[in-house]
């Protein structure tokens, strides 16, 4: 079998060490062929994306910044069960559970809640497994196009609840929208 039929692309060439003829050893024909190939690229569409002005189109399954959801009444859904942290392949999630006080009923949906919930954005690979693991549908990866900002300080990449929990007014707006529909 020749190498052309074995290779997947069908473009592989067998190496040959045969002696070049005088014409070939001047390289002229080969050079003209090469020049023709490169000049065609001069007129091809450029693939560059001029970044700050243009942005790359995102894939339909794009997963962006995480968000800890609130329910219809604006209570936090997370019950600090730790399943997301367990499922996380990058071990990016840490949390501390706490018991809900009677006067905090309007803040947390379950009796146990996460008093600290942190995702290390330097470790996270945005795989979305935390979202799949969550039994309370508390954590979601949004379609937000805001990428994690660059920084000079490692601590700044650990996102706490202040950055992760959905803002209250957004939760209320969602509830209103749902009621209208």
């Amino acid at each position: 079998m020749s190498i052309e039929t074995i290779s997947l692309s069908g473009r592989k060439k067998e190496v040959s060490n045969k002696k070049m003829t005088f014409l070939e050893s001047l390289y002229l024909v080969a050079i003209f062929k090469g020049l023709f190939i490169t000049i065609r690229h001069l007129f091809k569409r450029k693939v560059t994306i001029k970044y700050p002005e243009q942005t790359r189109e995102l894939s339909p399954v794009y997963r962006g910044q995480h968000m800890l959801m609130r329910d219809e009444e604006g209570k936090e859904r997370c019950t600090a069960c730790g399943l997301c942290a367990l499922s996380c392949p990058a071990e990016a999630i840490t949390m501390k559970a706490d018991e809900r006080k009677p006067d905090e009923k309007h803040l947390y949906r379950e009796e146990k809640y996460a008093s600290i919930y942190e995702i290390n954005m330097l470790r996270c690979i945005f795989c979305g497994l935390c979202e799949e693991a969550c039994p309370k549908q508390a954590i979601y990866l949004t379609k937000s196009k805001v990428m994690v900002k660059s920084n000079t300080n490692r601590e700044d990449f650990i996102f706490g609840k202040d950055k992760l929990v959905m803002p209250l007014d957004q939760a209320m707006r969602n509830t209103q929208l749902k009621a209208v529909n």
Partner: protein
Amino acid sequence: MDQAIIIEKSVIIISVFALTMLMAMYSTLAERKIAAWLQDRIGPNRAGKGGILQPLADGLKLFAKEEFTPNTQNKFLFVTGPAISMSMALMTSAVIPWGDKLHLFGRDIILQATDIDVAILYVFGVLSVGVYGIMIGGWASNNKFSLMSAMRAASQMISYEVAMGMSIIALVMMTQTLSLKEIAEQQSGMNWNVFYQPVGFLIFLVCSFAETNRTPFDLAECEAELIGGYHTEYSSMRMGFYLFAEYASMFISSTILAVLYFGAYNYPGMDWMEQNVGVNIANVIGMFALFAKLCFFIFFYMWVRWTIPRFRYDQLMRLGWKMLIPLSIANIIITAIVLLLHDKAI
């Protein structure tokens, strides 16, 4: 009268100098742009509109860099190297005819800094001295890689000068003159030398790639083997001088190619224009014709750079000594026979 000549020549020299500098500057931008386009990219486009100020930014950056001098005994030579490269690249432009003549203030102004009889020999002489810039720089750097690169550059230039000179001999046999001005005049209309000396042209073209140290013959700057080559130890504006000299000599050798083989400032219908529209306009167009031709060659240099990979050293030597030199000798003999037969026929 004498004063007028001094003024006239100074104006020509200064404008040629300015043009060479400008072209060398913008060749760097053109190189990056063309490299990008040939690779389906866009290239530098942030400094100014479409990157038009990029060369200025690059120059400014080079000026701001630390001027490093290695611990060597040859500080004087270290500074001389880039200076020689630069001045040799600029000196060649003195004999190039940029146009026929302009008729201004009741005088005919020849558009050439100086019309010497041995212009071609002068160009070759200056080009040969140019190798000293690289040699001395590489030697004074006190660095093995620089020295190796300098040796390569020197042996490459010397080898290819032989073939280059031979290809020119065939041309000179045909034109019967060594003056670039006369060679340019002989090619009026579409009577370009490239149609009579295609093989000679090809040899000359290949050799000028080697002489200017451009890819595929840039073994002197072979990054993978020699770090930066002869300018490894150079920084700041001394480094800038080397880079500038490379682009300046590319510009000059493109011009020489255009003058020797592609009819210099001649374009079809030039005589008709001179009679009907006026000498000045016809010659200004002629200057633009030369400019267009040399721009094409500069583009060609870049086009080839992004097409052909670098030769191996032994391949380079084999191509020079075993292919180009026999070919150019054959070219001389065939030219001689044809010229003899032609003379007999008349």
